[in-house]
């Protein structure tokens, strides 16, 4: 009975691809989002979409075990939205940040793995601030500041929701 599961996963991804926080909402391409989820949580993870406040949170599981949560966010760089994914493990530690769509001519360095890697293992108790525990990239300051603030906000939300049982 794997056949019905696929459409469900696809549906969940499609829903989550239209993120929350509508002011700057930009769609994430479903294929890109699916690839990111697969990379972070392994192939065949079950994806459910949970609605919390106005946000869409992806719940990732395999069998009875929770793999973690993820949320798509948007921040404005110089003039375009930057669409990114924040994934956490069941202990509310940040697994990784993925840049799903970068639309600006400068500052694309935030998508580079060596920069994103700095977020791994962070918790809501960490400062997650440029110049403190996150290093900047010259010439990409605006995007670095925007994405860092966006990751900090989403990690704080996911952690708070998880701890009060709004997502589980």
């Amino acid at each position, binding site marked *: 009975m794997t056949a019905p599961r696929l459409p469900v996963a696809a549906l969940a991804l499609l829903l989550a691809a239209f993120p929350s926080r509508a002011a700057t909402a930009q769609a994430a391409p479903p294929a890109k989002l699916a690839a990111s989820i697969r990379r972070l949580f392994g192939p065949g993870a079950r994806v459910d979409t949970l609605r919390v406040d106005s946000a869409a949170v992806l719940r990732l599981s395999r069998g009875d075990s929770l793999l973690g949560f993820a949320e798509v966010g948007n921040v404005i760089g110089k003039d375009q939205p930057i669409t990114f994914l924040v994934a956490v493990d069941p202990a509310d530690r940040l697994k990784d940040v993925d840049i799903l769509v970068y639309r600006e001519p400068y500052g694309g360095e935030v998508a580079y793995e060596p920069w994103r890697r*700095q977020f791994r293992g962070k918790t809501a108790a960490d400062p997650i601030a*440029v110049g403190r525990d996150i290093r900047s990239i010259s*010439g990409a300051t605006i995007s670095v500041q925007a994405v860092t603030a966006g990751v900090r906000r989403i990690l704080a939300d996911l952690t708070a929701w998880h701890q009060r049982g709004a997502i589980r």
Partner: protein
Amino acid sequence: MVPRRLSLIVVCLPAFLAAQERTTVGGYGEIHYTNRSGPNSPGQVNLTRFVLYLAHTFDDRLAFRSELEVEDAKLESGEPGGEVALEQAYLDYRLSEYLTLRSGLVLPPVGIINETHEPPTFNGVDRPAFDRDVIPTTWREIGVGAVGSVPAVAGLGYRLYLVNGLKAEGFSAEQGIREGRQEGKEASFANPSLTGRLEWARPGLKVGGSFWYGGTANQDSVLGKGTFAAPVTLVSADARYEVGGIMFRGVVARISVSDAQAIDARYGGTVGSRIAGGYVEAAYNLLRPLAPASSQRLYAFVRHERYDTQASVPVGIAKNDSLARRITTIGLSYKPTYNTVFKGDYQLLRNKARVGEAEVLSLGLGYQF
């Protein structure tokens, strides 16, 4: 049940995925106080730059971006100073992260300041003098090109443009190729020129290499009719590094004006055949030990520039040692936010001939958004 919901979503999808057209306004600017003459005489205040950034996104691929600048607050006929100019105006067509096609008035991607010139991004009230006399910022020309990241090499980006060339007629001994720029104003396309850059980024680190190559003769009967007649070759390397509250940056450049002799003969100048130099700068965020939790910054910095616009001169031209400049700047940059800054610095303007040396006190504020 699921298929029905899915199909509903699929029907809605195109509307959701259609890119939103949007117009963005931004800007940057700086106001300076300069005292070149010591405490016994008045200084000067100037609204050095006021720049409006205007961009429009047409769809997922196509965007327009521009910067319109007013220099020195106003411009009045018959009075010196003041300028209204477009610094950038181009269309970007994004094919992928590896390739965006760009056409219009673009910034040659040379050095650090030419592309990243917003006042909160650099220390010192004025841009480094090197970025005026050697790399002629803000350098902009009209052309077409490509920008993107290099596939399979994390952190490596490129830009490559074909733009209108420089005009040798404007070259000078003091400011090298600076007044050879055409800046998008009825520019001659007699000498299409190539310019480009490779840069590599890591957290805290960026290193880059840039070049410009092109003729400058503008079909002058003496200098030559060819596309690459009276060529100028510029190569430059730069690095920026940040670690634990310390910032370093440095740029070097070398410009060869291989037909300087003919250019000097034609226009009666004393343009160097080689223009070369660079600077190094170190800065430390004093708030890091004092207020580690603060997002504000207070940088103390020192910069040393050495450059010579007559590093070599053609046969028959006497070298002017006052053009071998040595400029030391020490100062503070206070940044309440990453995109606002209050600056102060003291400059020692020296040269090899020890002629016309000066000390300059400057204060300034800058912003970008």
